[in-house]
């Protein structure tokens, strides 16, 4: 294998060069998993930045109790579009689409995914769906104002552009299903010789568990959204009690997908952290089997807990008993992961570079998100904090502090491999520190507000909630500042930084054994894997 000095560390080599087409078509019609991965990266991360702007505007409105920055209709559209963009256009497709595509085939020693054209089609479905959602914002009676949950009967009645937005999400659902199908097949069929299930990197394990949820749960979302369209366009009355329908049934259908979807969002993030921590501690991951198994356990048990979103809805007390119990069961595999990550650090040789800092803060923020989730799983306490800022704070700890920080960790960890250049370390750490502080100031304040009784989705609020809302808004500015520093530094580095070398972190998984940037079909010849993913005595060899 070539050393760092010999490699051509620029975006001209490897898969950047080897293509029959030129210009934009060499990207949008490429079937190379790395090019598709970067298409996903730019599109999903672009929508992440849009979502951030919307989030900052929401916080700006909430800075004072009766802000006149915007009208209530605008505010309601803002939090709806913020949720739809962040969930359906960033977190769900982001990690599997971008880093799953970039890294997973290399990690298992494959030349590409099992169905490269289907892979491209998935991205196209995503972009078409995103285009439909964007169209819904600027046409008809204005952007949807239902919240990202599209609860009936309101979503069936509002005159805003809900139908078009729902159609967009429906389309993106197919993208997710096909990606899941593709990844399951790839991981089953295309592992290189010697890449046994016990040698599969944990990031790939997490994608495998995720892919099953994508494949099995997303069709339910498709059905649910199609029923909203039927309700709005045909007046079927499926969810209308005056015509024998049931609005609570909608909530069941919606959460049968949307709770497992939470694990689509977080599982790959857990996989990223499981790959990064051993590399920066120079020590094999602790409890490999338990971490891999717990991913599958989360995927399975997580499919049975949707009802905990509905404790106040009026569903039966028996249902609440069962869903509360199952919710506590699903907490256990997450706890196992945290304990194993921390144990990996024991007697290691720990280097606190940017990917590691993001990964370690993931553990802390995810733990806070998980522990506050216990409050929401217990029937008694959930009643008080349901539909308050506590829930909003809680899921931002899991989704942003968890999945989001893992995504940024993955950007710092893997992107230099694909761009061939790396970022400066010090600004990356400054960016991380500001983000970490701003994040906690913002979302911890929101959790306290929720405990005090501030309902979510409130355009104006009572003066008693003013001080903490101001603090939260200031937190959002610190977070945004950190994000800007992090991004400027990262992208300047990727295009103009120092050469990254083939294996800047000393990783032992296969992606670090090939030249930087990887060639179009990754491996000159199919590798024969001879060691586990975290055997750091043998880095550089397959």
């Amino acid at each position, binding site marked *: 294998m070539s050393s760092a000095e010999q490699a051509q560390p620029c975006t001209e080599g490897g898969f950047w060069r080897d293509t029959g087409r030129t210009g934009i078509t060499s990207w949008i019609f490429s079937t190379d998993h790395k090019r598709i991965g970067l298409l996903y990266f730019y599109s999903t991360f672009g929508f992440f930045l849009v979502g951030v702007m919307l989030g900052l505007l929401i916080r700006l409105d909430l800075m004072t109790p009766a802000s006149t920055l915007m009208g209530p209709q605008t505010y309601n559209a803002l939090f709806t579009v913020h949720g739809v963009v962040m969930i359906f256009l960033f977190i769900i497709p982001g990690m599997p689409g971008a880093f799953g595509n970039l890294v997973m085939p290399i990690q298992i020693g494959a030349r590409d995914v099992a169905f490269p054209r289907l892979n491209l089609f998935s991205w196209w479905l995503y972009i078409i769906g995103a285009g439909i959602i964007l169209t819904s914002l600027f046409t008809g009676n204005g952007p949807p104002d239902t919240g990202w949950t599209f609860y009936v009967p309101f979503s069936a009645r509002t005159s805003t552009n809900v139908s078009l937005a729902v159609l967009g999400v429906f389309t993106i659902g197919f993208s997710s299903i096909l990606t899941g199908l593709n990844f399951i097949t790839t991981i089953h069929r295309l592992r290189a010789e010697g890449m046994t299930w016990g040698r599969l990197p944990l990031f790939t394990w997490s994608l495998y568990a995720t892919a099953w949820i994508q494949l099995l749960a997303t069709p339910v979302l498709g059905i649910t959204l199609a029923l909203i369209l039927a309700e709005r366009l045909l007046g079927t009355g499926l969810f209308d*009690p005056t015509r024998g329908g049931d609005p609570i049934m909608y909530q069941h259908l919606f959460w049968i997908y949307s709770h497992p979807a939470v694990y689509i969002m977080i599982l790959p993030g857990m996989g990223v952290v499981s790959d990064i921590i051993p590399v920066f501690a120079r020590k094999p*991951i602790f409890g490999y089997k338990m971490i891999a198994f717990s991913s599958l356990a989360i995927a399975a048990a997580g499919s049975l807990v949707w009802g905990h979103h509905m404790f*106040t809805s009026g569903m039966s007390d028996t249902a609440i008993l069962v869903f509360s119990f199952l919710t506590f069961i699903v907490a256990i595999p997450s*706890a196992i992961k945290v*304990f194993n990550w921390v144990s990996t650090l024991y007697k290691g040789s720990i280097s606190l570079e940017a990917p590691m800092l993001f990964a370690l803060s993931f553990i802390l923020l995810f733990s806070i998100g998980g522990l506050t989730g216990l*409050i929401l799983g217990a029937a008694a306490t959930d009643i008080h904090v349901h539909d308050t800022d506590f829930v909003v704070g809680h899921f931002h700890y899991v989704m942003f502090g968890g999945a989001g920080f893992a995504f940024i960790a993955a950007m710092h960890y893997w992107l230099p491999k694909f761009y061939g250049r790396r970022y400066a370390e010090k600004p990356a750490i400054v960016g991380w520190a500001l983000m970490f502080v701003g994040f906690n100031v913002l979302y911890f304040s929101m959790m306290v507000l929720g405990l005090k009784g501030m*309902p979510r*989705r409130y355009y104006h609020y009572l003066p008693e909630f003013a001080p903490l809302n101001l603090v939260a808004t200031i937190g959002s500015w610190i977070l945004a500042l950190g994000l800007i520093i992090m991004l400027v530094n990262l992208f300047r580095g990727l295009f103009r930084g120092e050469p990254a070398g083939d294996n800047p972190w000393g990783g032992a998984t296969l992606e670090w054994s090939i030249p930087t940037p990887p060639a179009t079909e990754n491996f000159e010849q199919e590798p024969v894997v001879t060691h586990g993913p975290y055997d750091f005595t043998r880095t550089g060899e397959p």
Partner: protein
Amino acid sequence: MDAAHLITTTEAIDPVFMFIFGASLVLLIGITVTMMAFVVRYHRSRAPEPTSKVSANIWLEIVWTGLPTLLVLAMFYYGWSGYLALRHVPKGAMEVTATARQWSWSFTYANGKTSPKLYVAVGKPVKVELVSLDVIHGFYLPAFRVKRDVVPGMKNYAWFVATKPGSYDLFCSSYCGTGHSAMITTVEALPEAEFDAWLNRKTEKEEHPGHELLEKHGCLGCHSLDGTIKVGPSFKGVWGRKETVLTNGAERTITADEAYLRRSILEPQADVVKGFPPVMPSFAGQIKEAEIGQIIDFLRSGAAERPKPDGGRLAKEKGCLACHSLDGSRGVGPTFKRLYGSRVQVTQNGKPMTVTADDAYLRESIRMPAAKVVQGFQPIMPTFPELKDDEVEALVEFIEGTK
């Protein structure tokens, strides 16, 4: 129910919070401190090479799977038993129906009294039946840790008891559209005697048998209850009023007492109030003696003095102000400020047109909100069929006065 032994919803829920937060804090501190200690102790500057290769330990895995399992099962159990306290309504609880609509609350008591605020007696449990007229709302009392969704077509309920007099926030917790954050009111907890007095204070909605008789016999077609002059004099304040009447063509002053009222019903032409035409037919033979007594009793009770509705209060209680501001700021609907008499661009049946916001237009907009919708606003205003004509007039007058 003995108030001393009554466990309030707050007392049932807060210990569960303390337990879960306490256990979580211990865990969080444990994880954080361990992680920080490892990061400091095994930092590459101190530990250039790893000093252990251990990568699995079955006993550790068993311990940190088993202990959290026991812990979360305990949390589940306490959470469930606390929740049961929210579901079991104490015997003898007062029943109130909460009616939610976009975007206001209305509370109806057993005796028919309605109120935009939820008045309760201190120390007396209240069971609230939750009814929605449109979309899903949420009935949320943070001070009592009580929340239940208000779902159309479903019979949900919640209960709570206030142990101290005071005013407590009542929020709509389930997002219900544009005016969601304005859908707030309060629980007013009063000492029991004060509450009983409030509850039994007569309002116009309580039907006196005499009132029914006036309606039954069509008296109110000519005699108003609110002071409006119709064909005949108004009943408002009629008891004890000095009137100038014409008796056989001669003016004299009488006091409207029982004898006068009785004679007016049976022999209407005997003493005709000056200024009114002598057109009233006699009710002799159509109306029973006992009924006359009830009518007189009703007129005497002062209940007939239905006060003129207060437009400002109505605008607030019916939730108008949730969408229509008074200060000129743009809400869900157009502001009331300087609305009266202004030229308004509206859409009628999809066609744009300009109208003047006069009495007729405002009346129509309250009765049929979808008829003419101001351009740039959503056609989402609900109708208010419960408003009486005089209440609509009061609202129009109120809007006219909003300069």
